[in-house]
């Protein structure tokens, strides 16, 4: 009987220890200030190109996370990407002429949506839609543009020397 | 016959059983009866399927053909539940005791009781200590199985096998590897348990002399069949080749000394 009691105590301590470790991992090494699915409202935005934006990416205003990307789909009427965002309830005074842009954290970091407040005194409500948007910068396009403009200049200068 | 009253004289009836494993025939038309309240011995040279017979009776395996009746129930046709119900009325003593290694002697004997009943602890205690007293090991109830000698382990296993007062007690090689004293103890217990509890016992063994002291009826198996049966005394006097060879331990006879081989001289000269 004594032996089984010791076993029970040791086992209990082990299980508690395991759950403590799980609790530590969830609360201490993750950024769990905001969880999608809490009270809040949804906003929509249409983009030509969302780059590598993923569900769960942060929506931030001046660097503060105010929400998360909830879903991403493709609109076959307008041929645009539709991004739905879940905004935390306490950020309920976002002007309805604010703009949303897809930005990159750091040089090669993950992408997120940056919202810049507008000047309207009307605020976004559930289901509101951003009118002004800016697409993701795609590195290949940037490089292509750069190469094109560079090549253009080069041919210009070549023509000049011909003359 | 199948629906006869439970007072049929035989507790176990093996009827024309065929069994083969891996293409090798173990039984070819085995028929034998185990009468109620008696000690029946199953003997035979090694490899004749004595242990297989026990596995048939306890429903661990099913015969290819034929019937195995225990208490008028065909074991091979029972559902798992019915088989388990039947097994609750059986007790079996294994060659090495087969005590559960992580439990004390007391808990081992209490195990079947705890598993199948909800008796209060005080009653379980009385029951277990009574059975341990019967095998003379009440003082050892605290020991763990690894602290027991071979003979003691077998006695504890016997206490466990009879703790729920079974109708049928099966002994698999109960004398193998025991010193003469332990052997005597087991022999006496075998007889006493059978008579005191009015149960039926089946003993598988090839210790001819020991069996002769206790068995009411003996069967000798060979070649997948019963080759002789009767009281041990009658068998001793049987003059047919194989029985005589087996009962007297002669090295050569119908069971050949030599494993089948090509001609000795031919092989040597090759």
């Amino acid at each position, binding site marked *: 009987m004594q032996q089984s009691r010791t076993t029970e105590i040791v086992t209990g301590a082990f299980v508690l220890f395991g759950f403590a*470790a799980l609790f530590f991992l969830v609360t201490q090494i993750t950024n769990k200030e905001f969880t999608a699915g809490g009270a809040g409202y949804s906003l929509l935005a249409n983009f030509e190109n969302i780059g590598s934006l993923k569900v769960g990416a942060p929506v931030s205003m001046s660097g503060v996370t105010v929400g998360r990307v909830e879903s991403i789909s493709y609109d076959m009427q307008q041929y645009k990407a539709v991004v739905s965002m879940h905004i935390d309830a306490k950020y309920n005074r976002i002007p309805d002429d604010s703009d949303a842009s897809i930005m990159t954290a750091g040089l090669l970091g993950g992408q997120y949506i940056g919202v810049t407040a507008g000047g309207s005194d009307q605020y976004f409500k559930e289901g509101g839609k951003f009118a002004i948007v800016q697409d993701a910068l795609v590195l290949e396009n940037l490089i292509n543009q750069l190469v094109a403009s560079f090549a253009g200049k080069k041919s210009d200068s070549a023509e000049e020397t011909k003359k | 016959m199948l629906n006869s009253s439970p007072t049929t004289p035989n507790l176990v009836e093996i009827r024309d059983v065929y069994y083969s494993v891996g293409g090798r025939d173990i039984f070819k038309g085995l028929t034998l009866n185990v009468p109620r309240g008696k000690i029946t011995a199953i003997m035979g040279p090694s490899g004749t399927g004595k242990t297989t017979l026990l596995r048939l009776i306890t429903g661990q395996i099913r015969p290819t053909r034929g019937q195995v009746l225990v208490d008028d129930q065909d074991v091979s046709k029972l559902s798992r539940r019915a088989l388990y119900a039947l097994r609750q009325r059986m007790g079996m003593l*294994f060659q090495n005791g087969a005590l559960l290694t992580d439990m004390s002697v007391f808990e081992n004997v209490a195990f079947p009781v705890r598993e199948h009943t909800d008796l209060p602890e005080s009653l379980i205690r009385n029951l277990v200590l009574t059975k341990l007293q019967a095998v003379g090991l009440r003082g050892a109830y605290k020991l763990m199985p690894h602290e027991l000698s071979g003979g003691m382990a077998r006695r504890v296993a016997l206490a466990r096998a009879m703790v729920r007062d079974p109708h049928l007690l099966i002994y698999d090689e109960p004398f193998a590897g025991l010193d003469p004293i332990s052997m005597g103890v087991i022999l006496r217990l075998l007889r006493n348990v059978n008579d005191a509890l009015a149960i039926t016992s089946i003993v598988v063994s090839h210790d001819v002399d020991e069996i002769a002291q206790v068995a009411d009826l003996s069967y000798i198996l060979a070649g997948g069949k019963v080759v002789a049966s009767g009281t041990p005394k009658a068998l001793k006097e049987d003059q047919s080749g194989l029985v005589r060879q087996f009962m007297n331990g002669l090295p050569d006879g119908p069971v050949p000394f030599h494993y089948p081989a090509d001609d000795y001289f031919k092989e040597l000269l090759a």
Partner: protein
Amino acid sequence: MFKALTKLLGNAVAAFGAITWFLLRILSQVPRALLRPGLVIHQIHNAGALSLVIIMTCGLFVGMVLGLQGYDMLERFGSESSLGSAAALALVKELGPVVAALLFAGRAGTALASEIGLMRATDQLVAMEIMAVDPFRHVVAPRFLGGVIALPLLTMIFIAIGIFGVQLVGVQQLGVDQGTFWSQMRGSVEVDDVMQGLIKGCVFGVACSLIAVYEGYVAEPTAEGVGRATTRTVVNSAVMTLILDYMITAVML
């Protein structure tokens, strides 16, 4: 050659089928096994608490090595400040669950397999059958459950200790800033990552425990048979863990 190959394939499929039946038989006994929590607690103790020392020791050293190597590698790109996030992600998503499962197979899995194999070899399992006690309920299911519960917990402990090890080397010894270390880690590790590690721990727990009890149960009832069963337990658990790891990662990324 072709014949041998088909035979091998046939054997593999047959083994898979046998182990699936085995799992179903265990699962059918799980509710009744749970009615006797004492047995399951005893097995959590055997599989979990007794593996704690080896899990913690190895977790600490894996973390410390990760700190050294991670720092050395990241320093070449001038980004040793992300040591926290790199090491934590590696531990949470891959190293923790996999290494914990391998250690579990070596420590608890072999113990399970040899214990059940010995019970088979000494007729204890048959004796239970004869006593009308299903060994699946009394022996196999509690051991399986014990392993399934223990491994995810061990995995979490391994990861937590591992991060402590990384921190020990990275921050205390190599001088990565404490605040940067933790904030970088928090910035990149998501709750989903921890959940992925937990799910892996659970899946590996099922796989390793199942393999261990299966190998023990079907072991040949001889000394060599039990020895072979423990060997097969370690080998099969390791291979299965890595295959499953790839599959889960592919599905969840």
